[in-house]
């Protein structure tokens, strides 16, 4: 049974079609990145998965249940972290988590124990007995994540979880999300910071203007030429070697080294072998943009061409 199954989902607000046609599946144990530009419909899609918004068309299954007909079953199994940070301002962090757990039907004892665990997990120990209104944005973000986990859900929906987090907390979030997935949970993370998703997600859902990209589009976009960045201890020798290999016209030389568009990983391997063979001291050889970003940029470029 898939953790999240979405097929042909659409939702409009008046004449604004926020989501036109979303179709994807996320299996348990996987982290899927929900990727799209601002206004692509990411939050609307997550609200529909979180049982808060009724889709106009299409079918959704979260943890095997339909949010429309069995919202209570879905809610018992799904944790949602909204993009809009809200907390009961005058309750303390601990009280807020206990209250959330109780709202999920946990007894006071269980709720108190769970709140303690989560405060440890998201590293809010020092603030546990302060009112939530004193929390900074990043701390509220962590509280919000803890609240999403309060009932130990099978499916996690995280809407922009990393915004406002410092680098240490981001690293912590990454580890936590990977660990949650390895425990067999299904995680869907939305973000427009692709570098971050790159390290967290093992699959991606591209959403652009309310439409998810089909698998063949993604494959095509992934296989288009992409830029690789080369650095050498000896820039002059690098330039000469590129010239000799016939890359002079397409390579862009700058003070950091060179950027070369390559069709495939095989082409990259060949070029690297050639440069090493020519005795160029290559110190760095890597894609200039991450996989997600490459596909995302390519898809949005095609979208613009179509329009």
């Amino acid at each position, binding site marked *: 049974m898939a953790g999240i199954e979405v097929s042909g989902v659409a939702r409009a607000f008046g004449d604004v079609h926020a989501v036109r046609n979303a179709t994807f599946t996320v299996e348990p144990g996987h982290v899927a990145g929900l990727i799209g530009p601002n206004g692509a419909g990411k939050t609307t899609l997550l609200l529909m998965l*979180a049982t*808060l918004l009724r889709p106009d068309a299409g079918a959704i299954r979260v943890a095997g249940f339909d949010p*429309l007909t069995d919202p209570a079953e879905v809610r*018992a199994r799904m944790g*949602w972290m909204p993009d809009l940070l*809200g907390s009961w301002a*005058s309750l303390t962090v601990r009280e807020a988590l206990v209250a959330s757990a109780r709202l*999920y039907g946990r007894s006071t004892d269980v709720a108190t124990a769970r709140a303690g665990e989560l405060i440890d997990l998201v590293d809010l120990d020092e603030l546990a007995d302060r009112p939530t209104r004193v929390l900074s944005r990043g701390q509220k973000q962590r509280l919000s994540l803890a609240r999403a986990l309060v009932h130990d859900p099978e499916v996690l929906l995280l809407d922009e979880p990393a915004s406002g987090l410092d680098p240490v907390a981001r690293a912590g979030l990454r580890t936590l999300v990977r660990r949650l997935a390895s425990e067999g949970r299904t995680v869907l993370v939305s973000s427009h910071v692709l570098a971050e998703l790159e390290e967290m997600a093992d699959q991606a859902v591209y959403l652009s203007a309310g439409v998810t990209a089909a698998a063949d589009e993604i494959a095509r976009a992934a296989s288009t030429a992409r830029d690789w960045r080369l650095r050498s201890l000896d820039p002059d020798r690098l330039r000469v070697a590129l010239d000799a290999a016939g890359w002079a016209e397409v390579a862009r030389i700058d003070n950091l080294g060179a950027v070369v568009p390559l069709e495939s990983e095989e082409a990259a391997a060949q070029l690297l072998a050639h440069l090493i063979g020519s005795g160029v001291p290559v110190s760095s050889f890597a894609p200039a943009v991450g996989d997600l970003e490459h596909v995302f940029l390519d898809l949005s470029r095609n979208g613009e061409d179509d329009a």
Partner: protein
Amino acid sequence: MSGFLRGLRLVVTIDLRQRVRTVAWYVLLGVFVVLVAGVTALLVLATDAFLDGGGGVFSSIVFFVLLLGTLVSPALSANAINGERDAGTLATTQVTLVTTTQVVLGKWLAAWITALAFLAAAVPFLVFAVALGEVPATTILVSTIVTALELGVVAAIGVGLSGLLTRPLFSVAVTYLVVAALSIGTLIAFGLGGASAQSEVRTTSTYVDWMAVERDGVPPGEEPPCLPPETWTYDVPRFDHVWGFLAANPYVVVADAAPASFDDRGTPTDLFTWIAVGVRQAQHAPELEVVFDECANWTPSGAVVDDESETPREVYERSVPSWFVGLAAHLLLAAGALAWAVRRTATPAHRLPRGSRIA
């Protein structure tokens, strides 16, 4: 069912726990107590002379508590749902296992309990008024319960509107307008409505010709000389068509619900009963054909005019208790507002209020 109550209690607890940590709330309560104390002191001074103590003070304090309660309650209730939505805590509650009905009813109960705190703060003054004079225990009980119910009605309207309207400021303002419509609008509607639907009263009077009696005398056993009947007309307002407006006034509900107290001549002994008699009097259609016949009741020493005017007590007793109608209408309004708010707040949401986001 116990699951329902458990969730309801949880929503109420979370809401109240936040309210009791707000400083402004204590300030408001303090100001309220000071105002009620001041009013009580002034009432005692003002009524000592001509009213028999406690009754007048008691009913005035109850009205004052109702006035302040209905003024404070919208501010405490009418941002319950849209305020939570603005704060971003509504959606995170709605994704849990509590239902929308529990959330809306819980918010209402919390707002009501908060308003009841004001009534509770006024209790010492009510006790003082009772100690002053003879206020029947039933009056104390009934007027306190009905006042509490009216505060619940205002809280329900506030919470209902906060679920229907997007902006807290707007829903608070509309709730105040509803309270004003019930408290003052009903009086205006009653007065203007009654005055605009007037009926003509025809009075026919037949008098004894006293000049002829003086001049000629009247032999025993004979009819006195009579003047020809005189007829004239005038217009009266028809309050009996519009008494329902008055019945919908919360002050009238409280006054009319309290058990009436009359002296042995059938005259009301407290403010509540005077209001109740006035309201019930309005239920009765005025007599449109008035016949006054002095001749028919003639005696040699003068006319016996039959004095059949009712005492206030008789009017009171032959009328419909209007508080029942008014309170029923209020409870219906409150239940409707809450039910509508539940419908509009239910998830998965069908439509969103313009310009709002659900999270």
